[in-house]
């Protein structure tokens, strides 16, 4: 009997423990989901794609300063770029979207399409000063759904020592022919020519677009002769050994690491590597990506938009607007640019201020001015589908699955099927 009793007690306490742990688990998950969205708290939620900037970073300080100015605390959460889009969609589905999201520009039209974003007009924000080519990525059916907080784009970095050794003058690279000739010279001098990222993700399309657009091709017709010429240019570089075969799998970070080994003459990469390039063991410089027959090729714009998701409690909008404004004044743009070291302000006034402080960024300002939004030209939510077809074609052609012509024809058929 005594024995039996003790055993019962053991059961009971185990069961109680189980019940308590369930209760705790329940409380935790309940707390999380109800954390957002209560207006009285004076806490505003903010999501951005910069997990590299932690709570002690300058960026966090900048965000908090904007909150203080508006008299509230900002609760900032950082996600990886692709995860952020998914998180935003899930949150919107649950009706628990944050007050402010900084999101990669091609995703703006996707989020806008779902009806989860407020328009800039609804917020009474003025976008007239923003460069039109940069704002375009956030415009769907004539309505702007966000404001770029800065922009970055691609250019051609070169290793001055390698070019010296090969006897190449970077200023001589003005079109595709002169670039290919330079690559030949570099390769003959026992260096490696150029590295870029042709990986089967959005990054691959991002890197291919300057050549695609530089040839005069258009995203609505992937199999045009101009598009084929651009892909043949890349394919030719691989076949002639001017570019390494590994570009097919390389991300932009990997290609940059390759460039930093000092073997490569050229690397196609972005504004965000400016600091890294300055710290490299060799002297670097940049030139504009050349268009096929000379001039500057339009590179795609990169960079984040600040957007304000729809809230059930519209009284929050007032403070949200103050936060957005704090990020988008000319001073705000320059401060963001300086905090990140790689953002070019999206307004002429901001760009002038930045150049006064940092004249070296002149070529980047020029590149951003001639850059083009990926979702512009009315592509909007069709862009991700076209982009997938395009990077698949690049992969197929470079790896030898099919010829550039065939690969692009398949891509065009796939893109048409996907967007119709």
């Amino acid at each position, binding site marked *: 009997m005594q024995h039996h*009793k003790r055993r*019962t*007690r053991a*059961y*009971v306490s*185990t*069961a*109680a423990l*189980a*019940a308590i742990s*369930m*209760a705790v*688990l*329940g409380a935790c*998950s*309940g707390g999380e*989901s109800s954390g957002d969205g209560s207006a009285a708290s004076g806490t505003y939620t903010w999501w951005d794609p910069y997990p590299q900037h932690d709570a002690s970073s300058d960026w966090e300080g900048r965000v908090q300063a904007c909150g203080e100015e508006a008299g509230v605390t900002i609760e900032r959460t950082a996600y990886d770029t*692709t995860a952020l*889009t*998914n998180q935003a*969609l899930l949150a*919107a*589905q649950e009706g628990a979207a944050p007050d402010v999201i900084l999101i990669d520009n*091609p*995703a703006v039209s*996707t*989020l806008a*399409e*779902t*009806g*989860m974003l407020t328009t800039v007009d609804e917020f009474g924000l003025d976008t007239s000063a923003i460069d039109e080519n940069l704002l375009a990525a956030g415009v769907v059916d004539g309505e702007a759904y966000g404001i770029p907080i800065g922009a970055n784009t691609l250019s051609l970095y070169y290793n001055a020592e390698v070019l010296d050794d090969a006897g190449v003058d970077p200023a001589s690279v003005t079109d595709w022919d002169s670039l290919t000739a330079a690559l030949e010279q570099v390769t003959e001098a026992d260096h490696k020519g150029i590295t870029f990222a042709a*990986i*089967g*993700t*959005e990054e691959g399309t991002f890197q291919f677009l300057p050549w695609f657009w530089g040839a005069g091709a258009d995203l609505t017709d992937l199999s045009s002769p101009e598009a084929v010429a651009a892909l043949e240019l890349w394919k030719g570089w691989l076949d002639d050994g001017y570019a*390494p*075969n*590994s570009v*097919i*799998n390389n991300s932009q970070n990997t290609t940059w690491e*390759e460039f930093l080994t000092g073997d490569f003459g050229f690397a196609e990469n972005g504004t965000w590597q400016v600091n890294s390039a300055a710290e490299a063991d060799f002297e670097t410089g940049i030139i504009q990506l050349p268009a096929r027959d000379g001039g500057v090729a339009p590179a795609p714009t990169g960079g984040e938009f600040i957007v304000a998701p729809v809230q059930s409690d519209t009284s929050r909008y007032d403070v949200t607007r103050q936060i957005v404004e704090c990020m988008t004044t000319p001073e705000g743009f320059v401060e963001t640019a300086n905090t990140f070291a790689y953002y070019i302000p999206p307004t002429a006034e901001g760009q002038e201020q930045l150049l006064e402080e940092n004249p070296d960024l002149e070529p980047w300002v020029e590149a951003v001015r001639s850059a083009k939004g990926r979702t512009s030209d009315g592509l909007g*939510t069709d*862009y*991700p*589908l076209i*982009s*997938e077809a395009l990077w*698949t074609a690049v*992969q*197929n052609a*470079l*790896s*030898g*699955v*099919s010829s550039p012509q065939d690969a692009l024809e398949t891509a065009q058929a796939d893109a048409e099927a996907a967007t119709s």
Partner: protein
Amino acid sequence: MTSISPAIRSGRGGGDRAGTRPAGPSPRWRSRLNPSHWTAAAFAAPLVIYLLLFYAYPLWRNIDLSIHDYTVRAFVQGDAEFVGLQNYLEVVRSSTFPTALRNTALFTFGSIAVQFTLGLALAVFFRANFRLSALLRALFLVPWLLPLIVSASTWAWMLNSDNGIVNAILAAFGLHPVNWLTSPGMSLLSVTVANIWLGIPFNLVILYSGLQNIPDELYEAAALDGASAWRRFWSITMPLLRPVSAITLLLGLIYTLKVVDVIWVMTTGGPGDTSTTLAIWSYREAFGTGQPDFSPAAAVGSLLIIIALVFGFLHLQLQRRQEAS
């Protein structure tokens, strides 16, 4: 939260009732509420709730996604149009489907055939306890312990066309470098090799523990009768290991069918579609592009579940027949 609270109530209720029970069990209490039943229910409740939350709900959600047309807008607004089997038809008719199916078959059967053979060979090898065998066996477990992202990245570096160690070794012997990950003919083979390396420890451990259950006397008797090592392997080890082998192969199959991370890190299913399996295809549709396409992704996922189920039933059938005989 609401779905959890009944559990808390029933769990706590069971506890309280049993706890305040007087020392001598009164007959009236027992007739109405048998405390041991309550305790049993309290113990089962967390498991049942866990199963419902983490198995039944996702499965139902997967089917729900696959029979509606979830565009991103519909996903947020919750007003997806019911399309029946349309998504399945589109998936099956897609030009990616035959490639993905073929790649899945090659990847899965190639992986488990070699994993099983090497795992068994190693298990038999380690059965003869020699010095340092325990240490060596532990070392063979390393692939299992490493985070997949680490081992997959390491493989990707080793197989890099220009700077990889494998091509460096080939070059040292005067051979031509091979584009392991970037040529259409090699990419599937490369990811399969990496996956085999990852899967050997699992096979080794399960088969080794299976070998422990084969009595030594059988081997001794066979040795006395003059059976060669080869003969002992085929006539004793293999037949007695059959139940363990079957479950190892089945689990291996299910694991391998759904491998995403290794392939995604090494080739993202490329170049083109040349190393795209069904699992990779599903992942790419849902998360690999700028525009999540959950419905076709869920349809591909359902197909994978069906394939795994077919093999699961096949296993049950074989087992039943074996028990009957």
